[in-house]
């Protein structure tokens, strides 16, 4: 029974027997040691939540490879992550008011924010610019050039840690 957990069983398809059906990782209390020819992938609790870690060769600094949640669909506000972890936010605000505050979730500290105006009725060749102001935590305000009045989108791209 124990071998069949996570593995194709001894009496199953001989081509795959011994390979893995999944890797179910149970939390480790400490980072596993790695020799100069090894790497390790493992589960460690961060704030009580299991996360996948990668430890490079020779006991180098472990890297967190996952984040507790993700939102990726066809809606206008989403986030994912990259190793670190850093949270990558993206989304679209339609017809924001001047100075509108945008608060992103999940809560982090933003280290990068960029805005760009799209689909504006001032196109082409008229000034249409937006910048983030009052950046604090995961919030920022949208300030844009006054020539724009309606029917435009602001895309945001942000990174949090």
């Amino acid at each position: 029974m124990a071998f069949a957990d996570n593995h194709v069983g001894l009496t199953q398809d001989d081509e795959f027997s011994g390979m893995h059906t999944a890797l179910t990782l149970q939390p480790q209390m400490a980072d596993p040691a790695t020799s100069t020819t090894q790497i390790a992938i493992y589960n460690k609790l961060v704030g009580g939540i299991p996360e996948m870690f990668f430890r490079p060769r020779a006991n180098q600094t472990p890297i967190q490879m996952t984040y507790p949640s993700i939102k990726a669909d066809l809606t206008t506000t989403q986030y994912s992550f990259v190793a670190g972890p850093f949270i990558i936010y993206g989304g679209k605000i339609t017809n924001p008011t001047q100075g509108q505050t945008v608060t992103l979730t999940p809560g982090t500290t933003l280290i990068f924010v960029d805005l760009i105006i799209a689909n504006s009725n001032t196109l082409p060749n008229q000034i249409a610019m937006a910048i983030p102001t009052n950046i604090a935590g995961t919030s920022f305000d949208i300030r844009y050039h006054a020539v724009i009045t309606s029917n435009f989108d602001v895309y945001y791209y942000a990174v949090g840690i």
Partner: protein
Amino acid sequence: MTTPPYNPNVPEFPSDDLATTQEQLLNNFRQIYDKFLVNHTSLDSGSDAGIHTIVQLVEQEEPFQTDPSEISIYSKDVTSQADQIFLRYQGNGQEFQYTNYQLYALTSNQFQTKFFSFLPGKILIYFGSIFPKAPPANVLDLSPYISKNIISISLCPIGPTPGYKPNVKLLAPKAGVYQGIQLFSNTGVQQVPACYYVIIANVV
């Protein structure tokens, strides 16, 4: 000579006659050794015994179960893609696609250098630089053409003199897939400046 298959019914009872079952017992131990050797360092390899050599994940049909404090990593088939790595959070929580599509070098041209990668969650990230000319060479190409939802756009003007950041307009998707983003000058008197760009998009 191949080892006979593993027989889980040997031994079956404490009263089994060893003289009768010995051959199958030896076969079973041989099978255990051989199958454990798949993806793992062999049982007789000393201090490294039991460590994984590689991990081959056989395609799964359904999300894998996770108990509290566990994470599961497995592979599933994805329509229009090869098998991809999936993760599932603890307690049978959220499942998401960790790898996405396939990565290969894109062909750049004099107007655009192109790169792409992925983020967990079936998200593509396009990046590179664009050197716009007169239309239609002011269109930022989004190949490979698989993105169904543009999540965000970031442009940073580059070049010998400062320039306004362009504004943009999404070109209408073709068969539900976005293929390009049109860039416009923000002043009307200057050409659209060259820019570094980052585009994030869904392929769902």
